[in-house]
């Protein structure tokens, strides 16, 4: 059931990308979509009643592996968040530059390339 909420978030982001008229809104919708994907990835690593994936001193590794949630998706999501940050910075810089050149944030007016 909760996976469908993640899917809803992804679809909301996708709708935003497709239907937005402004470049900044497209960027925000992409960020929402990426958040949805990260949540999905995190939830896949969840275990009912699991403990956070931090090894206490003196804890044996086998009991740790039996108790904690899966740490691998958390590492993947961390990496993906940082990648998303880099792409976001680039997109925002592009939006700023586009405004400088075309004078508008409106995607329907930024249309010099055709054919």
């Amino acid at each position, binding site marked *: 059931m909760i996976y469908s909420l993640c899917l809803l978030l992804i679809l909301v982001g996708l709708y935003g990308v497709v239907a937005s008229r402004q470049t900044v809104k*497209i960027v925000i919708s992409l960020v929402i979509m*990426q958040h949805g994907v990260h949540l*999905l990835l995190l939830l896949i690593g969840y275990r009912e009643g699991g403990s956070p994936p931090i090894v206490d001193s003196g804890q044996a590794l086998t009991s740790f592996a039996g108790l904690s949630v899966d740490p691998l998706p958390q590492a993947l999501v961390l990496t993906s968040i940082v990648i998303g940050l880099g*792409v976001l910075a680039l997109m925002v810089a592009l939006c700023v530059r*586009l405004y400088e*050149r*075309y004078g508008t944030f409106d995607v329907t007016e*930024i249309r*010099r390339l055709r054919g």
Partner: protein
Amino acid sequence: MGDFDMFGVDIRTLVPLFVAVPLAAALLIQLITRERQLLSGWLTNVTMLSLVLMSCLAIGGSALYHLGGWPSPIGIDLRLDNLATLMLLVINTVGLAVSLYSMDYMRRYTATGHFYSLFLLMVTGMNGVVLAADLFNLYVFLEVAAVASYSLVAFGCAHEELEASFKYIVLGSLSSALILVGVALVYGITGTLNMTQMATRVAETGMDAPLLLAFALFICGFSFKAALVPFHAWLPDAHPAAPAPVSAMLSGVLIKAIGVYVLARLAFNVFGAGDSELSLLRWLGIVSMITGGLLAAGQNDIKRLFAYSSISQIGFIVLGLGLGTPLGLVGALYHLVNHALFKSLLFLNAGTVEYATGTRDLRKLGGLNQALPVTGATSLIGSMSIAGLPPFNGFWSKLIIVLACVEAGYYGFAIVAVLVSIVTLAYQLKVQRTAFFAALPKELPALLSKPGREPRLMSLAMILLAIGCLAMSLVVLGGLRDPWLIGAAQQTLSAGPF
């Protein structure tokens, strides 16, 4: 599976250097030489030359490199096998030619230190994608290459470049999100990210519905990267608008390294695709071929024409991949190498034309054979290769793909492939006729006497690629063919642990 290649050198130590060396060079350029154009240019060229030498050393070898010493399912692996060697050689050779070219071409731009850093970062990403042995590192290196390419497309900050880059980055991020959902699904189903282990688990359970969904998501995501129709919308804007060396890298290697290569790996080595999944690839290939070819014929902008032609040729490659037979794979990989060479050559030619005349419009160009002799000669070689005229390399690879279609029983596809080749010939002849062989138009009278219109390093790069095209046409005669192409094809076909 030894770690030594045919020269007896231990290539296990070489494997991480393919990723570490261009990354270190990119950072050094940022630190030390950013203001000094010439030094950063030479550093880039030296790096690319060393990468080419390393790729040559790696031919015929295979190695599995465990990062950090951690054993296989736990740790991150880098794997070098025949297909990876093929891709590495293609990426680094085209990269060397392009970096030679950009020494002269990028003089017209400012902040070229950043250009060389971004270029080396893109090469790092592509080398990493080719060497990665687990799915998430493949995604990370893919993003490195993609972000570098988004920046490079927007490099000159002119109107068209920014607009094209924005379109590219939005569609690219969308496809990366799709790919990440696919990775999440596959991890949830198989419990591992290591591609070897994933292949064994997929072989045990078979392609049930969730895995099929993941496979479909991967095909959607990577078809965006490979610019297959209907996911091609960014390419005709991004490739023409970018500076010429960037267009050559993008069209020549990037869409193959992060698109076609990953599709081949996933379809054959990881998912062990059966005929129903491969038929999807075949149809994508056919539709791309036809659409790209027809849309290219109506263009007046040289680079836009070449961009649509790239879509068409990638369609050929993916059709060959989708056939699934050894002959089809050999044809597809051979065409991949050929297309990398002649498409980057054609884009560099278009760049030289734009550098010398200031326009890309076919209706305004003419007489370039007299004005730009090296460009004229190399573009003739490139055009004849891509059109598939014997005895150039394009002819042999297209012939192999057509024969593979006939052998597998898809006569309709074979006929379509031949027809699309004729269309390719038509629009390449149009370019040659109007731009190169026609008389010099009235608007470009001073061109014949303009000094420095064809700088030496740009000519050298184009000549290198043309020699590469001619050399690849000799590959068919055996000798080099066997360890390289056939080995790569067999590697790709063998599903399961490798």
